[in-house]
């Protein structure tokens, strides 16, 4: 039970990190290999705001999300729009441009914050937990899981607005939308903004109980890719289900095998699922 619950909570974070990635992929067929690094930026933002103001990072959540929204749009305008415009090797160019961005951000974080592990401490929720009939539930994780669910609700609602329909239309047929007066470039950059803002939420919540370092993104990014591919690129529902599944599998594997092998389980599940559904659980075959 304990294992299942902590897996569930971690799974929600994974799901939210993956949702941003999935959104961007579904929209423009771009896998963002700087995804983990963007989340790391959000974590550092939360950390810095906490350090400067002393306020709980959770209060800063809207601010960080907004900041990330701007960063996401900037990344799209400066890099991705250009990468999408190339005539040759489009797939490779976008992989390696976002990969270059990842290394660049990692270097920048190293320069600004140094390589040490940092952590947000002494907040209202820190080190507190609920004990429910022998089950131990740390509050930061619980809050993070709750906020992730809210964020998913938010993403779902956004999907039902006019903007959401424009997103959907752009996803269905990228060229036809121009004919009905949707500015594709604007939709794409808002999509990136939204994807990054999603990461902002995940990053802030994660900062409440996870150390921050320039390399923190790499680990989460790999899990995010696996989650998205498992759920099916472009599917919000897929990201949620796959995130929860991955969180559970990880928790159980860590219980059964050595903790250092905890990721083997999720990777194996992922490969097994792809054997039967090459486009993920919820992907369009």
């Amino acid at each position, binding site marked *: 039970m304990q294992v299942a619950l902590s897996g569930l909570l971690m799974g929600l974070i994974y799901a939210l990190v993956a949702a941003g990635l999935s959104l961007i992929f579904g929209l423009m067929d771009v896998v963002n290999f700087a995804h983990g690094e963007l989340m790391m930026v959000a974590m550092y933002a939360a950390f810095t705001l906490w350090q400067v103001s002393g306020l709980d990072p959770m209060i800063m959540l809207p601010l960080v999300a907004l900041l990330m929204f701007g960063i996401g749009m900037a990344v799209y305008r400066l*890099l991705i729009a250009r990468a999408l415009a190339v005539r040759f090797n489009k797939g*490779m*160019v976008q992989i390696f*441009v976002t*990969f*270059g961005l990842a290394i660049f951000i990692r*270097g920048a974080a190293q320069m600004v914050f140094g390589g040490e592990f940092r952590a947000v401490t002494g907040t209202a929720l820190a080190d507190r937990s609920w004990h429910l009939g022998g089950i131990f539930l740390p509050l930061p994780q619980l809050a993070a899981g709750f906020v992730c669910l809210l964020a998913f609700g938010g993403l779902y609602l956004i999907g039902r607005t006019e903007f959401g329909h424009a997103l959907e239309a752009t996803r269905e047929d990228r060229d036809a939308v121009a004919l009905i007066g949707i500015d594709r470039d604007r939709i794409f950059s808002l999509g990136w903004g939204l994807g990054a803002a999603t990461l902002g939420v995940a990053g802030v919540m994660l900062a409440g109980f996870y150390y921050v370092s320039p390399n923190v993104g790499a680990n989460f990014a790999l899990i995010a890719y696996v989650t998205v591919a498992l759920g099916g690129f472009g599917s919000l529902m897929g990201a949620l289900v796959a995130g929860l599944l991955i969180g559970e599998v990880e928790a159980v594997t860590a219980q059964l095998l050595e903790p250092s092998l905890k990721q083997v389980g999720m*990777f194996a599940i992922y*490969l097994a699922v792809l054997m039967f559904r090459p*486009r993920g659980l919820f992907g369009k075959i």
Partner: protein
Amino acid sequence: MQNAITLRRRRELITAGVLVALLIVLPLPFHDPYTRNLMILTLLYAALAQSWNILGGTCGQISLGHSLYFGVGAYVSTLLFVWHGVPPWFGMLAAAAVAGLLALLVGWPCFRLSGHYYAIATVVVQEIAYLLFLNWDDIGGASGVYVPFHGQSWLNLQFRTAKLPYFYVMLGFFALTWIAAWWIEGSRWGFSWRAVKDDVIAARSLGVRVFPSKMAAAAISGGLTGIGGAIFAQFVGYIDPDSILSGPLSILIALPAVLGGVGTLWGPLLGAAVLIPLRELSSTFLGSSGSGVDLMLYGALIMVVALWRPQGLVSLFQRGRNGSAS
């Protein structure tokens, strides 16, 4: 018969001959180990990228997990050497065979996936192998394996402090991968693989067997990468999962080919000649303080080259050539 293809291929072969001759004398004026080390690494990554290019560039299957073949090749050859005293020259063959077979084993499920699904699956397979090797105590686990020094000899590919012999071994390895790529380019295989890369449906309609094509490309690509691992292990004298079976290494194997020119004969060498010295020099002169400037420079270089020259740096040379030909 003489046409644009045969003429181009003859020119490529002549260029390669001249280049190898130049590379043979290149390290002679430089005596400091640092420079020679840099040259060796550049050749190593050029050769690895050339091997990657056979699958990624020619056949269009973007593998982001090639350090698997490199690492396994290194382990196979090293453990044969350490446990049974098998000279690395034979170890290399074993490494190539095991890595090639492994590539087939990975390809069997993964080639059913397309595009990004394939790329991510290769990362995952390599990560699984990384975690398993890290926890596999019989072969050293996380603490790795030291290659014992059996005395200076060409048979064992061990030289006390001399760098020059390794340079020539790497040059030989690079020449091998280049010749393999050149030969494939002109053969039926090369045509089939490029057809698979450009348009699977059209390729199938012309009788190209898509799955076997990918498998063959993977086996050759993986096998050659495995040889690189075997040589590298003798060169550095110590292997562990972090240095030879890691995610970043997988990217570094692909990167010179991508920056130099995917699917081209000269891209990997050109890409490595730009990337590897820049990377090593910036980390030597800027990275020691841990300031991260070297990473920023490295990342910026990748972004700029990828956006500025999507067809790779070789396109800088080709433009003039196409102009004069037409």
